[in-house]
C-alpha cells in the first residue's frame, strides 16, 4: 500500500503533480546538511516549511514541489564537498543550511526519493506522514 505524504495538503495546491510520479520508496543510508543542535527546526523540515523561503519568486511548479522534499546525499564525502562549495560562495548560508553532516538510515516505509544526481549524489526525499527521521551527527565543517 503506498504511503501518504507528509505535506499532502500543501502538495495539492500546486499545479503540477507533487510529489512527481517518478519517485519511489528507498532503503538507503543517506546524509544531510544539518545544524549541530540535532533538534534544530531546519534539520527536519524541507525548505518550504523553513520560513522565510527563497522560493517566493519561483514560478516553476517542479521547483516548488522540491521545496517539500528533504535534500539528502548518497555519501558523507559528497555531502561535505557540496556544502563546502556553497559556503565558499555564500558564507552566511551556514546559518540557513547548517554546517554539519549527519547520517540517517532510511527504509521503504519512511518515504520516496528521486534518482540521485551523479556528481554530488543529491536527491530529493519526500517523507511519509508521521515519519521523523533520526539523524546521527557525523562532523562539523571547518569554515575558513
Amino acid at each position: 500500500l503506498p504511503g501518504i505524504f507528509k505535506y499532502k495538503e500543501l502538495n495539492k495546491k500546486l499545479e503540477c503533480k507533487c510529489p512527481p510520479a517518478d519517485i519511489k520508496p528507498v532503503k538507503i543510508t543517506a546524509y544531510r546538511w544539518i545544524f549541530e543542535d540535532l533538534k534544530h527546526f531546519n534539520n527536519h523540515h524541507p525548505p518550504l516549511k523553513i520560513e522565510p523561503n527563497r522560493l517566493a519568486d519561483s514560478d516553476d511548479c517542479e521547483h516548488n514541489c522540491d521545496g517539500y522534499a528533504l535534500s539528502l546525499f548518497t555519501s558523507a564525502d559528497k555531502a561535505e564537498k557540496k556544502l563546502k562549495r556553497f559556503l565558499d560562495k555564500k558564507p552566511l548560508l551556514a546559518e540557513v543550511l547548517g554546517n554539519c553532516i549527519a547520517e540517517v538510515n532510511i527504509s521503504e516505509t519512511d518515504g520516496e526519493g528521486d534518482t540521485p544526481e551523479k556528481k554530488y549524489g543529491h536527491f530529493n526525499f519526500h517523507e511519509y506522514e508521521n515519519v521523523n527521521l533520526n539523524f546521527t551527527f557525523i562532523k562539523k565543517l571547518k569554515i575558513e
Partner: protein
Amino acid sequence: LSKILRNIPGLEIPNFPLELSKVGDLLYFEGSLMGVYSDANNSPYILDWVEANDHVNRWLAYKVEPEVLANYIFRNYTHSQIINNPTNNILFLIDKDIKGDIVLCKIISTKDIPYEYLPKNDVKFEEEDSKKLEYIKKKFNLDDIKLQINDDDIVFDILKEAKKSDSELINLHIKSKDSSKVGFGKIRSSILGAVLSNYNNLSEATAVNIFDIKGKLTNENKVRRHKGELNEIKTLGETEFVYVKAASFSVFLKPLKHRQGLFDNQTSSQSINQSIFDLFEASANAESLNKIKDSLDDSILLSYNNMLKEIKEQDITLSIQYANPSNDIKFEETFDAKKAIKILKNLDVLEIGKTETVRPKGTFKALDSLSSNFKFESLEGDIFEGKFSDQLKSGIFLFNLKDLYQTTIEIEEIKSSGKKNIKEKMTMVSCIVE
C-alpha cells in the same frame, strides 16, 4: 528569537524603483541564491542572496552589463569581480519577507558590502548550480558577446599607467583567495601596512647598498657618512603613495625623490629597482643567488626575508611592477606563498661574509700539527682560534708556546641570511718571531 541582520550604511528608499522579471538562476539550492532578472530595457540584473533570519531574506540587487554577465558565465570573471563592479557602482539592498514583499530597500555602495556577504575571491560560475541557463544566455544574447580577458590575472600595464603621469611608477598588486583579507578595493590594513613597509625597507636598504658599492666603500669596516647623509640616501629608496585601483588591490607609488646620474647616469630609483628585481630573479635558485651575494648586504636580505615571510604567512599573492616612461623600461615580478617558501629556502642556505685582517702580537697557547689548528693570545688579552694557512702549515713545527710573535690573521665573518648568528673563521696567514 530571530537574529538581527547586519546594519549596512546606505540611503533608505521607500520602494524598490525597478520592475524586474525573473529570467533564471546562476546559483540555486532549495531556492534561488543568485537570480538573473531583466528590467524594462532588457538589461540584466543580479539578485544575490546574502543573509537571512526567520522573517526575511536579504538580497543585493545590481545591474550588470551583458558583457560582464557573459564573462561571468563563461568563467572569465569571478563572482567577487561582478558583485564588486556593478554598473554605476551602486547596489540595492533588499529585505524580503516570507510573502516576498519588500520590507526594506536601501541604496548602498560596493565599499560597504560586509566581507561575510562576499564569496571567496576565486569562486567562479558552475553550470551545475544554475537553472534555465540557456534561457539566460538567449535573453541577453550572451553567446554573441566577445569575451574579455580576465583582468584579474593580468596586472595593469604599468608602463601605460606611468606614461599617463609621466613619472616613474611602482605598483604593488595584492591578491588573496580569502576575501576577508584582500577584496576589490579593500584590504585588511595590517596586510597593506606590512606590504608597504616591507617594500619600503627593501628599497631603502638597496639604496644604501648601491651608494656604498658605487662609492667603493664596501671593504671598509664602518662606512662613515657625514651628518644626515644616511637619511638622504634612504629617501632615494622611499616612495610616496599615489593612488589605489580596485582589482584586487593595487597601490601605486612613485619615487619621493631622485637624483639623476648618481648611479650610472640612471635615475636613482631605476637603479634601486633594477637591483631589487635582479635580486628577485637571482633568488629563484640558490646557485644564481650565490653569484650575486657580493652585491648584497644584510639589511637587504633581512628586508627581503621579511617581505617573503609576510607573503607566506598571509598566503597572499604580491605582484611588484616598476616602470620608467622616459626610457620605456619596466620590471615585473609576482610572488605567491609557494614561491616565497622556495626563495626563503634559497636565502636560508646563502652565506654572506666579510673578511677583516688583524695583526695581533702575542704568544701561542696551543699548537696542533695534526689539524693545523692554533690558539693565540694577543698582548691585549684577546684570544684567536683558527687554522694556519696552507703556506704556514708546513712550518708549524718551528713555532712554540714561549716566544712572542707578530702575526697576521684573516677573520672571515660568515652569516646565514635572515639569521642572527655570525660564524667567525680565522686563518693565520703570517707569523714572525719578534
